[in-house]
């Protein structure tokens, strides 16, 4: 059957944000077409591919690579798709398939803190958001009920209504952290889109400990669940449709988008409204690609800010041996954290951060270390068991401020379809590095309280990336400074909206997905106000 050539709403990108916006609009009876650059995939095949992968610490490895929809991959070597302009490497990862990158997320579904959206006013850094936390509350609640979020009230993010689910059962390892770090550090359950009971037709978690790269049992909400909901509501999905140009009309409205199939045959799709939801790198890339004589710097870019203010969450960490057996790897991967440094007057001086404990099985990393050390014979098994039982890790999740020079541009290199690759320009500033320095004292204290030995700090000045691509389509009320307005509508094109983490004007300290989903639902409700929207109803009524 031929793919539709028009729809009332055309959505570019089938990740969790685009798919939920599509679902919301399809529910209202609008015809919705989702164009996805990558293929459909099957959960069971990804599980099998992971088990068969020689690169199990690379969570991209089980996902198929499509030459027509390339995605960055850095193991066993950089595949050269995301060009690194420096000065700091930005090895962001994302998956170009139906359902998008939440196929391999940790299901961390955090709200911001109220002060996160006012850091310019309160602390003189970054920018303020065009909306308040209170305004967002109703859509956060909506997002949490759709995704099925389990959490507790002690994380620092206020709420007007209860979580849909109790926190996921605490792994023994995290209980020991909580007990031994009290009262110096309150260790609390992470807020996660992971079922602590049957919810949304999906089962409770059974502790597969592979949340990343794949939950085998559908206990955590993924973008593919959103796609299935959108399709059930009538939205159509076209996989392997690589949008390469957005076409404006003479009045500056968007008239159509153009996509290639894998054989580079081109198609044109018209619509009344368009949602760009292709993630924080591919979305600005597409706007820049769509330059015309009238828009020489790309679409939605009269401010010159498309692709700028690229942010993420860098992490440094400490690995050590606790003085008791905790056996990480029992239960979900990322269950608990310390949230006391997410906000405070110190934010005028250094980055805020969250402290996160992993519960990922240490067997792989311990085995690799023993092999590297050349440990053989009976000592190997003895050491493997001793270390796997005691090795633990704490990392920070650091705030990065928006800087225009941190940005995504078009590279001179092109991909297999002849489309320019994205190029990342990235620098981690002193504000963030000062936050890392402060957190190092927490690392030391935590290790001390756990009777830690064999302390291994991540190399000084080096950070792991968390794939929370933020800021490149930032929202703000001033069209001269921001790409999108407070509802995600581009300032320059009345019928072009952006959904995804790119619209967040600051990154705060929390995994960005839930905020992006809440904003995407709010965008959809703004495009076509729904009488039945629970969020809209809540927003209008006092708690």
């Amino acid at each position, binding site marked *: 059957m031929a793919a539709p050539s028009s729809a009332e709403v055309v959505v570019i990108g089938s990740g969790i944000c685009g798919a939920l916006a599509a679902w919301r609009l399809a529910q209202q009876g609008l015809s919705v077409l989702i164009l996805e650059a990558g293929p459909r995939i099957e959960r069971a095949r990804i599980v099998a591919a992971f*088990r068969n992968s020689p690169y199990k610490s690379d969570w991209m490895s089980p996902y198929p690579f499509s030459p027509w929809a390339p995605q960055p991959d850095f193991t066993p070597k950089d595949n050269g798709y995301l060009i690194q302009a420096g000065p700091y490497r930005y090895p962001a990862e994302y998956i170009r398939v139906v359902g998008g990158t939440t196929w391999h997320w940790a299901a961390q579904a955090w709200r911001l803190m109220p002060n996160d959206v006012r850091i310019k006013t309160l602390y003189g850094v970054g920018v303020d958001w065009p909306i308040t936390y209170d305004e967002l509350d109703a859509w956060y609640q909506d997002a949490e009920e759709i995704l099925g979020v389990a959490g507790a009230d002690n994380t620092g993010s206020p709420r007007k209504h209860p979580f849909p689910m109790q926190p996921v059962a605490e*792994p023994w390892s995290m209980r020991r952290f909580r007990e031994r770090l009290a009262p110096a550090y309150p260790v609390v359950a992470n807020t996660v889109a992971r079922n602590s009971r049957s919810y949304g037709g999906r089962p409770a978690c059974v502790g597969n400990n592979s949340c990343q790269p794949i939950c085998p049992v559908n206990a955590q909400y993924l973008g593919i669940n959103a796609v299935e909901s959108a399709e059930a509501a009538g939205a159509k999905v076209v996989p392997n449709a690589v949008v390469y140009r957005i076409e404006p009309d003479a009045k500056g409205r968007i008239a159509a988008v153009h996509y290639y199939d894998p054989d580079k045959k081109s198609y044109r799709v018209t619509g009344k409204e368009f949602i760009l939801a292709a993630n924080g790198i591919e979305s600005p890339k597409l706007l820049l690609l769509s330059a015309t004589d009238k828009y020489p710097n790309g679409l939605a870019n009269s401010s010159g800010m498309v692709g700028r203010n690229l942010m993420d969450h860098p992490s440094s960490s400490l690995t050590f041996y606790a003085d008791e057996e905790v056996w990480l790897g029992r239960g979900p991967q990322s269950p608990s954290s310390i949230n006391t440094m997410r906000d405070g007057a110190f934010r005028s001086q250094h980055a805020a951060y969250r402290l996160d404990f992993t519960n990922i099985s240490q067997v*792989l990393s311990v085995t690799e270390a023993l*092999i590297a050390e*050349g440990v*053989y014979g009976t*000592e190997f098994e003895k050491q493997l068991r001793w270390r796997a039982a005691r090795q633990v890790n704490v990392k920070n999740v650091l705030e990065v401020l928006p800087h225009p020079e941190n940005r995504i541009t078009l590279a001179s290199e092109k991909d297999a379809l002849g489309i320019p690759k994205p190029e990342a320009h990235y620098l981690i500033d002193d504000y963030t590095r000062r936050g890392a320095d402060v957190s190092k004292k927490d690392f030391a204290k935590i290790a001390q309280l756990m009777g830690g030995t064999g302390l291994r700090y991540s190399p000084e000045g080096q950070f792991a990336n968390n794939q929370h691509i933020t800021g490149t389509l930032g929202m703000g009320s001033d069209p001269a400074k921001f790409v999108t307005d407070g509802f995600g509508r581009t300032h320059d094109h009345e019928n072009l909206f952006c959904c995804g983490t790119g619209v967040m004007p600051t990154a705060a300290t929390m995994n960005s997905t839930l905020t992006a989903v809440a904003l995407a639902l709010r965008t959809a409700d703004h495009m076509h106000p729904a009488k039945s929207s629970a969020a809209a109803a809540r927003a209008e009524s006092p708690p």
Partner: protein
Amino acid sequence: MTGGAMDEPEPDPINPARRHVLAGLLTAYTASLIPWAVAAPVTSRAHGTFVALSAILVGHRSLDAGLAARLYDALTAVYPHFNADAQTLLAQINQQHIDPAQLQKTLDAAHSPLAPVPRRFIRAWCLGLVGEGEAARCIAYENALDAVMVADVLKPPTYAYGPYGSWSKAPVTKEANDHGSTKLG
């Protein structure tokens, strides 16, 4: 599923003599490192060398014969001199009575061309991996020894740990279980 463990060899009705090949490759010293494996059936001198070195380097109480065959096939396919290297290495351990704990240091100190060889064994048995970089292949996962060695406490990632919330209880290791059984008995 792979074949039976080598510490419980099945009778070989075709050629019982083969069962003694492995013992014939060992000195009293190396046999003392792997007493459980001395009677393991092997099909050739090269295969016997692989099994003997595997047992010495891995140190586990038993090795799966079916997995051994698959790893051996993969290693010999990837490394052209695998058999010759293995025989030289086993001879060195036999003759010089090298303690496995000191083996890598000894090879590194001598700048031996055999220095990469022990890691190939361990990586194959304990991670299920053969080959390097882009040529790496995964031969085993849930039955690789790193998973087997902790199977009393952990499941390999992607395998369900147990019913919801079962991970909240304190882990019970085989050592604790053995201790508990003794007390109960």
